[in-house]
């Protein structure tokens, strides 16, 4: 694992099951996109205080690659997939047969390919989660940012920090045949009580 549990608390079992199903849906969408089996699994799903989010993957000045999707619908906010540089390079190699020397020197084409991976998996993930919670969640076009972890995230934390205090953090592994280790984090950062509403809805749906 890249990061340790930092004051995080595990989610309730129904939320965990919904996240697992949503990740499975993301994996299926990726499999359809690239024509080879890919799956995503979550060793850990937790609710993390916003102040601890920049340090999730190590020091907040650590270079990371982020695939960002703005969210609107029944709540607004942010979905971010965060990867180490090594994982980003491995992901591109495994899924796209693209060999980037380093994540920070990606070509425009490689960036857009990576954005598409995030778009396909992130949208499928959100759709599955929205269905389970019976809510409307609409992702915007994906953006790629490569910079320090803290810098990538602090604007989003400022945006939602006025109305909320925790983020849903999904420690995620990509599994693809022959791929080197690919691990990262899906962060779901809804504003207001979006996260609580999603969690409540998922718990209610499971009966």
């Amino acid at each position, binding site marked *: 694992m890249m990061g340790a549990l930092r004051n995080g608390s595990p989610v309730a079992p129904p939320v965990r099951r919904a996240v697992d199903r949503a990740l499975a849906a993301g994996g299926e969408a990726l499999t359809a996109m690239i024509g080879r089996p890919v799956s995503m699994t979550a060793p850990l799903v937790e609710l993390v205080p916003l102040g601890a989010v*920049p340090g999730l993957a190590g020091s907040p000045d650590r270079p990371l690659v982020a695939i960002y999707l703005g969210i609107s619908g029944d709540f607004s906010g942010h979905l971010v997939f965060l990867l180490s540089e090594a994982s980003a390079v491995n992901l591109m190699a495994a899924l796209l047969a693209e060999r980037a020397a380093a994540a920070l020197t990606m070509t425009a084409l490689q960036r857009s390919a990576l954005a598409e991976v995030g778009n396909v998996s992130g949208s499928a993930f959100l759709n599955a989660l929205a269905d389970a919670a019976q809510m409307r969640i609409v992702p915007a076009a994906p953006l790629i*940012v490569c*910079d320090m972890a*803290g*810098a*990538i995230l602090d*604007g989003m934390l400022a*945006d939602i920090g006025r109305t909320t205090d925790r983020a849903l953090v999904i420690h995620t592994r990509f599994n693809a045949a022959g791929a080197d280790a690919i691990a990262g984090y899906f962060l779901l950062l809804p504003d207001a009580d979006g996260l609580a509403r999603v969690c409540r809805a998922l718990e209610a749906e499971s009966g």
Partner: protein
Amino acid sequence: MRSRIIPVGLGELKVSRARDDVLTCYGLGSCVGLALYDPVAKIGAMAHILLPDSALKRESAPPAKFADTAVPYAVAQLERLGASRLRLQVKMAGGAQMLALGQGEARLDIGARNVEATRAALAALRLAVTAAEVHGNFGRTMQLFISDGRVVISTIGRGEKTI
């Protein structure tokens, strides 16, 4: 001399008069790092400002989280340790816009608003900005050396600068 790195987390303020301390804001994006330093008393403070305005505050939020409250709070803490407001060197960094978003999501340009609010709060206390490395679309790490008041700004792929 061995330096001792003191991280200044989101919404925190750290004050020091230990010569080997280096107050550090890691990975500033839209946040503003504010460094105040009295070169005679050799006392410094650093705030890691997240938002422009404490009117947006929920109960029990720390004062350094907001530009308008961080500035007077930092000055008061420095003066309590014997610094003089009249001698303060004022340096700021950050306030970037990391995500190039289309219309309708302009609220994410919180960086520019943080810079503006920090400048306004400084002006209200008649403090002039000595040096600033702000705006742009990239992250910065900011370090204040208590030994001599220099501030080093480092980036990924855009070099390092001492202000």
